[in-house]
């Protein structure tokens, strides 16, 4: 399946979804005015991914966001819901939630997502 690469910009994050190299990453800032359009290819990609069998069932989904707006926070939840679906299809998904050591709000945001979805979250500092 074709990987998805989106270059990071000042208001949208860098995105890598690559099942060949087993790399899944969102990093940077997510402040798009129209979050639905921005994240629509990501959600589509995850839908297709859910139908694929992969050599290594371990999916480590890295989130390294500096900050995100409230519209993006809804779309992140949609992404995590899709990832939850992957677990049902035999893939073992872990969300690696990165936050800078002095950023309590980002840690808190990660902890809240982990309460909202049935996924394994690893909180990591960078």
């Amino acid at each position, binding site marked *: 399946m074709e990987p998805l690469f989106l270059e990071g910009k000042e208001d949208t994050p860098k995105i890598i979804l690559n099942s060949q190299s087993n790399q899944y990453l969102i990093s940077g800032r997510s402040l798009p005015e129209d979050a639905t359009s921005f994240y629509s290819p990501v959600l589509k990609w995850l839908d297709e991914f859910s139908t694929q069998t992969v050599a290594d069932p371990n999916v480590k989904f890295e989130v390294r966001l500096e900050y995100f707006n*409230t*519209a993006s926070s809804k779309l992140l939840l949609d992404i995590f819901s899709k990832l939850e679906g992957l677990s049902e299809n035999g893939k073992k998904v872990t969300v690696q939630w990165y936050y800078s050591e002095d*950023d309590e709000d980002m840690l808190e945001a990660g902890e809240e997502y982990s309460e909202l979805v049935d996924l394994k979250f690893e909180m990591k500092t960078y």
Partner: protein
Amino acid sequence: MENNEILTKSMIYDLFKEMTKENITLLYQGDFSQNLMKAILGLTEKKMDNIEVSTNVKKKVFNVLVECVQNISKHSDESKEPPASKFTSILMLGSVNDQFIISTGNLIENKKVESFKSKILMINSLTSEGLKNLYKKIIVGHSLDEKGGIGLGLVHIARKTGEKFEYRFDKIDEQYSYFTLKVNISKIK
């Protein structure tokens, strides 16, 4: 005759003194777009580099600025008829003692004032636990509307700052009011 001495008598120095005295870091009036938001964030980032506050506080200021600008761009009303048409949106960032203050102003239709006011009062009445529950309820239960909003902006700001909103509605004419919102962000947290 209009009394615009700052312009006609080259009194920008006085304006500068006034803004410095009031500790106003940033003042913008006009059209609120995504490009403007990027510009404001860039400017604020540079200015904040010189201010001795924690990264956590700086991020709170950015967070609140982003939500404020996107709230205005998505929800403010516009009028083509004077007097209301003269009232454009405004954003101000400043600091007083141990607090940053972000103030915004924009037009709102009179018919929306009551329900909006009750929303602010409801948010102001909640504890941090109550705000967290409301946030979760909205993020799980609501979808983005046609403007790309989800109604989380104010709840998010209240949670991040831990402060109550100050606000006022000034009636301009039969159809419109001017809505002012003031948000405090502690420099110490």
